[in-house]
């Protein structure tokens, strides 16, 4: 049986990280800009900011991490 050479596992993880980061970052930012934060009741406002802010932070972390890993792999 012929076997085609598989993908580099490190590349797979780097692409996954970057994609996850971009999805979370864009989604988090869109939710942030569309939420009427000023008009929300205080408890809802705090919950919304913490929840959305965490998604943006996780997204940013994964985007940067994925980008760095991809760059390193390209250099190697």
């Amino acid at each position, binding site marked *: *049986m012929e076997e085609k050479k598989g993908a580099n596992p490190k590349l*797979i993880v780097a692409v996954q990280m970057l994609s996850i980061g971009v999805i979370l970052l864009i989604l988090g930012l869109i939710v942030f800009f569309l939420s009427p934060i000023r008009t929300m009741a205080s408890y809802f406002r705090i919950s*919304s900011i913490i929840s959305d802010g965490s998604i943006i932070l996780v997204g940013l972390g994964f985007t940067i991490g994925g980008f760095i890993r991809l760059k390193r792999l390209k250099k190697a």
Partner: protein
Amino acid sequence: MHADFFIIVVYLALMFGAGIFFSRNIKNTADYFLAARSAPWFWIMGAVWATNIGFLHGYLAHGGAAYEWGLIQANFEWFQGPFGYVLTGIFFIAFYWRAGIYTVPQFLEKRYGTGIRTIYSLAWLIIFVVTIAAELYLGGMFLKNFLHIPFWPTVFVLTGVVGTYTLLGGLGAAIMMEFVQFVIMMLGTMPLLFILLHLVGGFGGIKNILISQWGVSAQYFTVLPDIHHPYGPGPWIILGQCMVVTIGWCAGHQSMVQRNLGARSLYDSKLGYVVAAIPKTLGAFLYVVPMIAAPIIFARYGIFVEKADAAYGKLILNLLPTGMLGLFIAGLLSAGLSSIGSVLNSSSTMLIKDIYEKFLAKRKSDHHYFIAGRVATFAVIVTSLLLVPVVLKVPLIMWLEQTLLAMALGPFMGVLVLAIFWRRANTPGSLVGFITGAVFAITLQQGFGVKIFFQISWWSFVVTLLVTIFVSLLTKPPKKEKVEGITWESDFESMVGAIVEERAETKAMRVTEMAPRKITRPPWYLNLKYWATAILLVQVLLLFFFG
């Protein structure tokens, strides 16, 4: 509402785009079915949990049951964590890895032969197709009832998104999306708990209002009710749920196991499974505890709920502001999509590895099976779509899923436990045991009208165990080479051998001054034993407070 709709559309578009972007890296069957064995432990953690949570087994159905029956619904989260995830991670996963398999039925074949593999694969394939159809139906109905989006276009869009990334990217794309869904479910839907607890005065406030003012039974607030409870008596939860169903689900559900086989190392696989018990435990706070507080909110704001399954949707629509609601619905959709994607990917793997490669097209090229995998994924999507209109309208379909689950989980646990822990168990024993256990389960359910699923699973497990032992002892034992490497005893022997070799080498080093052997151990914060112990302690505390 328009802003929320926009958030959902953007979310689906992002998943669709990322799936296509990722799929360019997939080249052969190992990439497609096992994600090139690349996933680190935290990918596994997120993917396993997201696979486990859906519309059916999660927010809508479990949330609805919690609204109706109370805290008992939390046992699906709090017992499955330590019993299912931790025990499977520690005891079973290593044997799947060592057997070098793609599917759980392949393991059964290696240990017992083709017969049991075929029966098990066919049962799960039917369960999977019905599950996808039911998830699509529930997702379509949810968006139709609460956001007034037409049913069929919604179902086609959901199928298009999840089908595209799973069909093109295989397990790697599915794991990637499951991690996104894990983050959105955890961070996007957790605020509901804090908002509700703030509004009703904490967990004590809920108890006070429901028990003291409304006269609700104290059984509503326990995870282990007494033996007369109609939904889940405590003793059956301990025997059936903890000992059989949760472990059978975690060690026997192809979608759950396949994520672990895609890990970059056995250690990542084990750690990922064990640590997934943490989000599993937190799951109760996402959709069980909020639904216990929901009746108070409904009464306070005069909201009418016609049936329990609709309670979760009504709660978030009436409570959450724009933006937060969109994110929340994205989280709910994530639950459904992650389940559909994982089951879709696993169905195609089983179709190709257990049916097509085994019986229809032997010894073809790797590329042939790779293309066949994509065709199989497409075939499963089409079959599930065709089942959507009838899935919940025709009781036979749901009856079939429930019966097959009851039929499969108990007997599977019986033969799996013996496969790994008793090397004397053989092919005729397992086959007769499995079939007897399955027939016994159906007889209990259909003939004697036993309704408690845990009770059926426990007794079918016991019957399978006894019959397999009895028939195995009456027939020839399996050959040594057949059980070598995939049973606990042989594993123990080989471990002892390795320890002896290592000690001999260390002694020799002193005499001959050889270079010290480099042994890499994970850092303390990734130590499996510490995590497993911490998780078990948390579960004991939860049971102490809520049991």
